[in-house]
């Protein structure tokens, strides 16, 4: 992976980008480069989207490569298909950059098998908050399309507004719309698999990528600024135990954040296991210390435990916040924490499948600032 | 290891080959994932067929076997044995019943072929998810505990006792023999009861393999076939209980009779010369049938079916012994007049009919009657009744003999609790199956003999004793280990949440609860493998070997495809 990205292929847009992307995928199936496509599709009721594994080409026309919401994290979809084995089908999986990055993390964790998967990402404008969308999908669609047209992100989810990796390529192919000439888009290859597909489709990658690279560079730098700033503010709000407790005060312990988190892959979460179930006198004792004990208890323990477990792999996809029935800014908090923990090892989750997980590797000389010099 | 499934389709002579296009089936399945060979053969269950299959498994180096042929109820065992011979685990095998369930019931050959393909595919898919199961063997103690020293218990002991099998006979009273001791004669051949019982009791005492505990009661029985821990206690004594281990238990606690005081209309205990059958047997045995005033009765009424409505069943033996009483009376008191009041006569079988006909030849009136009331009238007793036409009539006699219904022995309830054997109609011990398991119970290794299971006469009691003996001798062979059911349930300790749903649906008490770990545990020796607990468990903690969720679900998926 990580081949020099100075050249890319270019595809002419016929009516609109969506159709052309789908057309590109259909070509892939026609030429039997892949047997199926994993891609979001509007659900029959039209009020949301879901990933669908498509084998019958005729279904492709209803797919949408850039849905306005993220009801399921693509990484979970890929792992659902390949966790028990790569299978016989070659599958093109179309998803957003944060989803491909989560997929890469899950691969490191043995939850997916990418051998027969072709990961295709695209420049991501962000997605809308899920609950608002499902309650008025028409309005949602309108909002989303306008935001794209105006290149605005104020309607998008908070984590999306501060995402500096919205065009990071972790997969095999990437649909680049930024900086592309009118009525065209780039198809950027990021792996041998990617190259192979392009050549099989006889699409030569002779187009200069500088325009895309510089546009992406600008956006991510600008977003990174926003991100650092946002984290700074957030830190002042949730930093310190009291603030933290206050932030989670409405948490009802439904563990939704964990359930929808792509990198929370345990079959039975530690915080649902027997290890967190105690005899009555234990709860009583804790109540007596302070006069009363909030129930369900151990909310903060759960949240911090989760940070410990997954912040190194967190891709700031925002699923947790979407799923939180109490609108706790979980995703923003986790993205803040994740940035810092990942910085420790100069690790970026999902950036590169070759990068080992920090917790399964070490350097002889590192983290000295954490050690007691004496 | 790579899966190599061999699929063999039996022509079963013309039975299958004429109804199903076997080659089409072979084409349809031979390309399937994991199938390394698919072939047809004329008759797989024949000697040469078996040999052919054996060689194939070896030659092809098969890991799994699928046979599309007849019903697994016919030949599953046959082919499993071949697998074992060929060195693959017999449970890596699946049968598709394309004869009974397809070839024979389908009109049209196309349809039959399509269905056969479907069934074979399903079998192939299922077998992919089979896993090897190993035979379990546990030490089986051949010794037997027999509870009850009546004819039922005695007969069972004598049948069972042999050089290398110890029998423990427990009797709560001080002497063996039970009710028969009182019978001067027994129907239909009027042999003295003593003739039947005396010699047997002698034999018991002589036999050093039989250890008799009189005045003793069973306190505790814990375990399963081949291994029951038994505790005895001497009645009315505070001594330490006797403890020993047996492989099987026989319940032969017999029966007693309904108490006529519960049916006041018969005047029992209120009027002189109204006695029960058992009292009459004793009186007769003593040789002196007489009224309270010492005189001989000239007229006697025998009332059948006393308490029948109350218990709700026909006691089966009363009619016969009531007729036997007629013989007693006629032998001892010439030209005595006897009246038998009955509601239905129960005279089954070839010999009984003859006995009945001979008995009623002289001086006997059989009166079909209802609503009987017995009252004192002067120095006589009058029997007031409605005849078949519902006309009220009265008849006065010197003596009335009541033939009360047969009921379970008093200590049946206590034993039922100790052995956790359920009680059926009327409180008798419940057999495993009315038709198919008349002497077995729901607990393997515990059997019922004689009237502990329901009213019985001597001959059918003997039959049961022999039946139970047969069961025990074949299931517990000295020196031979017992092989409990292999396809049993298992409950995952890590998944069980301890809601005890499984405990309440298990018919066999095979599941216990580990109070410290708060999880259910299956006793694999007791479990019969019905799978009820598996379907009952909401969290999939319970599973059953060879009928796992995966195996059945994958079979299903293929079948509906």
């Amino acid at each position, binding site marked *: 992976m990580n081949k020099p990205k100075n050249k890319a292929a270019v595809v002419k847009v016929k009516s609109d980008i969506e159709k052309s992307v789908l057309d590109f995928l259909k070509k892939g199936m026609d030429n039997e480069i892949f047997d199926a496509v994993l891609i979001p599709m509007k*659900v*029959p009721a039209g009020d949301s989207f*879901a990933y*669908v594994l498509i084998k019958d080409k005729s*279904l492709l026309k209803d797919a949408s490569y850039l849905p306005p919401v993220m009801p399921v994290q693509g990484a979970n979809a890929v792992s659902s298909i390949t966790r028990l084995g790569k299978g016989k089908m070659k599958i093109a999986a179309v998803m957003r950059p944060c989803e491909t990055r989560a997929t890469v993390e899950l691969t490191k964790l043995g939850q997916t098998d990418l051998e027969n998967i072709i990961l295709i990402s695209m420049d991501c404008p962000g997605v809308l908050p899920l609950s608002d969308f499902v309650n008025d999908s028409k309005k949602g669609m309108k909002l989303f399309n306008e935001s794209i047209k105006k290149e605005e992100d104020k309607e998008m989810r908070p984590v999306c507004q501060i995402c500096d990796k919205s065009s990071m390529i972790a997969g095999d192919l990437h649909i680049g719309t930024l900086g592309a000439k009118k009525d065209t888009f780039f198809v950027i290859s990021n792996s041998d698999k990617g190259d192979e597909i392009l050549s099989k489709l006889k699409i030569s990658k002779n187009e200069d990528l500088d325009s895309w690279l510089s546009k992406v560079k600008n956006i991510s730098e600008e977003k990174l600024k926003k991100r650092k700033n946002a984290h700074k503010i957030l830190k002042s709000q949730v930093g310190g135990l009291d603030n933290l407790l206050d932030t989670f005060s409405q948490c009802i312990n439904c563990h939704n954040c964990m359930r929808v988190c792509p990198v929370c892959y345990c079959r039975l979460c530690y915080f649902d296991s027997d290890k967190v179930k105690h005899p009555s006198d234990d709860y009583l004792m804790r109540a007596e210390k302070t006069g009363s004990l909030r129930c369900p208890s151990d909310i903060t323990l759960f949240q911090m435990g989760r940070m410990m477990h997954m912040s190194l792999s967190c891709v700031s996809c925002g699923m947790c916040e979407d799923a939180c029935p109490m609108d706790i800014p979980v995703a923003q908090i986790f993205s803040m924490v994740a940035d810092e923990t990942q910085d420790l090892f100069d690790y970026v989750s999902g950036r590169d499948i070759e990068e080992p997980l920090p917790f399964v590797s070490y350097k002889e000389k590192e983290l000295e600032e954490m050690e007691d010099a004496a | 290891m790579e899966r190599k499934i061999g699929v063999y389709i039996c022509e079963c002579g013309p039975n299958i080959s004429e109804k199903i296009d076997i080659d089409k089936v072979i084409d349809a399945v031979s390309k399937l994932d994991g199938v390394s060979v698919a072939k047809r053969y004329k008759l797989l269950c024949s000697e040469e067929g078996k040999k052919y299959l054996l060689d194939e498994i070896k030659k092809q180096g098969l890991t799994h076997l699928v046979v599309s042929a007849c*019903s*697994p*109820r016919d030949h599953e065992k046959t082919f499993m044995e071949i697998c074992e011979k060929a060195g693959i685990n017999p449970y890596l095998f699946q049968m598709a*019943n394309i*004869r*009974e*369930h*397809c*070839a*024979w*019931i*389908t*009109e*049209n050959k196309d*349809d*039959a072929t*399509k*269905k056969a393909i*479907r*069934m074979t595919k*399903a079998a192939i898919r299922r077998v992919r998810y089979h896993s090897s199961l190993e035979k379990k063997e546990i030490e089986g103690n051949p010794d037997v505990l027999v509870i009850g020293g009546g004819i039922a218990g005695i007969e069972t002991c004598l049948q069972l006792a042999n050089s290398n099998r110890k029998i423990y006979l427990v009797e709560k009273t001080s002497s063996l023999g039970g009710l028969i001791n009182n019978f001067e004669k027994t129907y239909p051949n009027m042999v003295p009861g003593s003739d039947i019982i005396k010699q047997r009791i002698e034999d018991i005492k002589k036999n050093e393999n039989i250890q008799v505990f009189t005045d003793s009661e069973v306190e505790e029985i814990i375990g399963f076939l081949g291994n029951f821990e038994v505790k005895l206690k001497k009645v009315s004594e505070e001594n330490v209980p006797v403890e020993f281990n047996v492989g099987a238990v026989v319940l032969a606690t017999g029966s007693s009779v309904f108490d006529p005081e519960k049916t006041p209309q018969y005047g029992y205990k209120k009027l002189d010369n109204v006695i029960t059958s058992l009292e009459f047997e004793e009186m007769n045995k003593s040789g002196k049938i007489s009224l309270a005033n010492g005189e001989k009765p000239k007229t006697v009424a025998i009332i059948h079916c006393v308490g029948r409505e109350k218990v709700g069943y026909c006691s089966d033996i009363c009619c016969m012994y009531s007729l036997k009483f007629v013989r007693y009376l006629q032998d001892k008191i010439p030209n005595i007049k006897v009246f038998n009041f009955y509601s239905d006569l129960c005279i089954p079988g070839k010999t009984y009919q003859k006995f009945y006909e001979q008995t009623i030849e002289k001086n006997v009136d059989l009166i079909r009657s209802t609503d009987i009331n017995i009252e004192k009238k002067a120095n006589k007793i009058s029997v007031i009744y409605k005849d078949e036409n519902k006309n009220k009539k009265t008849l006065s006699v010197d003596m009335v003999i009541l033939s009360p219904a047969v009921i379970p022995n008093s200590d049946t309830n206590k034993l039922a609790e100790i052995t956790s054997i359920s009680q059926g109609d009327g409180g008798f011990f419940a057999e*495993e*199956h009315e038709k198919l398991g008349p002497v077995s119970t*729901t607990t393997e290794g515990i059997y019922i003999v004689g009237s502990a299971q329901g009213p019985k006469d001597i001959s059918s009691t003997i039959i049961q004793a022999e039946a139970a003996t047969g069961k025990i001798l074949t299931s517990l062979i000295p020196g031979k280990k017992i092989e409990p059911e292999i*396809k049993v349930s298992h409950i995952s300790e890590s998944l069980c949440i301890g809601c005890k749903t499984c405990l309440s*649906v298990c*018919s*066999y008490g095979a599941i216990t609860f580990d109070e410290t770990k708060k999880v259910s545990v299956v006793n694999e020796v007791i479990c*019969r*493998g*019905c*799978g*009820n607990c*598996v*379907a*009952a468990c909401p969290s999939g903690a319970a599973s*059953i070997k060879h*009928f796992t*969720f995966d195996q*059945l*679900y994958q*079979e*299903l*998926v293929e*079948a*509906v*495809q």
Partner: protein
Amino acid sequence: MKKDDEFLPKIIAFLCNWCSYAGADLAGTSRLKYPPSILPIRVMCSSRVDPLFVIKAYLGGADGVLIAGCHPGDCHYEKGNYYTRRRFAVLKTIAENLKLESDRLKLSWISASEGPKYAKVATEFTEQIKKVGENHTKNQIFL
């Protein structure tokens, strides 16, 4: 002789080993005729049939699901079929409430000696399913 276009239902039949499967065998050995729509799945006791199997079968596109066991009181495992009946009743009630064509589900007691009954049930149930028509969940993508 049936036309090829005629709809032949796919009916999953869970048969308990001791009664209903034996009954089905008897139907075969007595050469009784019934439609090839029935696809038998053998279980030791009808109480092994997890309602989830039935749901799976229905969502998987089975046109009908038959659960058959020993007659009440005759269960080889004493009382398994009583629980089967309760589970079935619950499932059927759910299906009725959600208008999920509950006619596709059937519970039947067939003893080892009731070959004719098995053939009768198989035929009648198939006819019933033909009236209900094909189960279209098999074409659903968004399950």
